[in-house]
């Protein structure tokens, strides 16, 4: 049992690495497209702040994911393993089909799907899910509204400045907003894996009561930071020279809006998607300048992938659990 639990912890850390790998673009796209940082420096900047986030912002999201959404009485090590496999499968399939979806929602969907496959819908703690489901819709909207509000405020505050002066100042400020966003990404996403690892430790009897040990915090942040480094390195290698019209002032407003959304959610213990919030921030900035300029059609297509993530990764995890149960009836 002990070694089985340790191996599942490594599977969870591999998922965390995959999460950083999968979501590296969210941390670097804005700061790279405004040319404030070179892709290579942006990747290092993002990975560093992913890791540094370990020392702040507590573990409220980890506690929600670990024991606030699924009844721990319904959980055993096989449920957690099946949940992780379901999430990983959905992440890989969407990556192959080129769909930008939330790794976080894949994880909680997978965890829930495997638990429901084991004991039925009674495994679900509704109060923990209501906030999470609500924020699938609210987090891109909050990013959008905050991005638009910040852009309007900046337009007004700097109305007497020349565009080149604004550009010069916001090139510096965007370093801070990129760091704040990566900070939020690190804390919100790594905490989801921490919650899963703490569930493994508790379920295996290694922890007497549910809490998040500090070594788990450090390992989860190291895994996501390394994943961001690896994913970012791959993006640097494969990205072409696409010209975007996002300027440093817009990048600053989009990243700041997304960072505020993610960090507020982290403090409130709500697991949100970093992909959704930064997309909302960019759309908010664009909508202030010209509403029809935003690629709403692209956003609408992606919305379906966002909505489907939890049920489909849950279904994959349920199938995995049933398959394991077929070979191991005690699962």
């Amino acid at each position, binding site marked *: 049992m002990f070694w089985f639990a340790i191996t599942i912890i490594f*599977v969870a850390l591999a998922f965390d690495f995959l999460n950083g790998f999968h979501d*590296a673009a969210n941390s670097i796209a804005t700061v790279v497209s405004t040319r404030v940082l070179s892709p290579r420096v942006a990747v290092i900047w993002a990975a560093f702040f992913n890791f540094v986030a370990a020392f702040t912002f507590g573990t409220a999201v980890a506690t929600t994911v670990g024991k606030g959404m699924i009844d721990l009485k319904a959980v055993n090590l096989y449920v957690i393993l099946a949940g992780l496999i379901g999430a990983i499968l959905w992440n890989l399939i*969407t990556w192959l089909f*080129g769909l930008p979806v939330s790794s976080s929602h894949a994880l909680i969907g997978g965890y829930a799907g495997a638990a429901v496959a084991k004991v039925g819908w009674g495994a679900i703690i509704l109060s923990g899910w209501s906030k999470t489901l609500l924020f699938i819709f609210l987090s891109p909207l909050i990013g959008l509204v905050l991005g638009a509000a910040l852009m309007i405020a900046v337009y007004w505050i*700097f109305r007497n400045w020349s565009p080149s002066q604004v550009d010069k100042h916001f090139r510096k400020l965007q370093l801070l907003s990129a760091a704040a966003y990566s900070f939020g990404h690190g804390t919100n996403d790594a905490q989801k894996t921490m919650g899963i690892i703490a569930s493994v430790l508790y379920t295996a009897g290694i922890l007497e009561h549910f809490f998040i040990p500090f070594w788990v915090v450090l390992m989860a942040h190291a895994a996501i930071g390394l994943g961001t480094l690896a*994913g970012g390195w791959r993006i640097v290698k494969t990205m072409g020279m696409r010209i975007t019209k996002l300027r440093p002032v*817009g990048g600053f407003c989009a990243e700041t809006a997304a960072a505020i959304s993610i960090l507020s959610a982290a403090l409130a213990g709500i697991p949100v998607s970093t992909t959704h919030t930064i997309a909302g921030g960019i759309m908010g900035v664009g909508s202030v300048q010209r509403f029809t*300029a935003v690629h709403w059609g692209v956003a609408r297509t992606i919305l379906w992938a966002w909505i489907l993530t939890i049920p489909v990764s849950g279904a994959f995890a349920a199938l995995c659990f049933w398959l394991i149960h077929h*070979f*191991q009836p005690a699962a």
Partner: protein
Amino acid sequence: MASELLPYSETLFALAILLALLLLIAKMALSDRPDPNMEFLLTLAEGLPKSDAP
């Protein structure tokens, strides 16, 4: 027969999953396929009007 195997090899089973996952990540890392998140966010940013500075 199969049901008797897993109780004694649960750790090996999880290790196999871990190995498969690491191989998939390595395959992703070495792939030349454009990153979906990056493509999506750049497409959104491309749509913005040029004059976004005040």
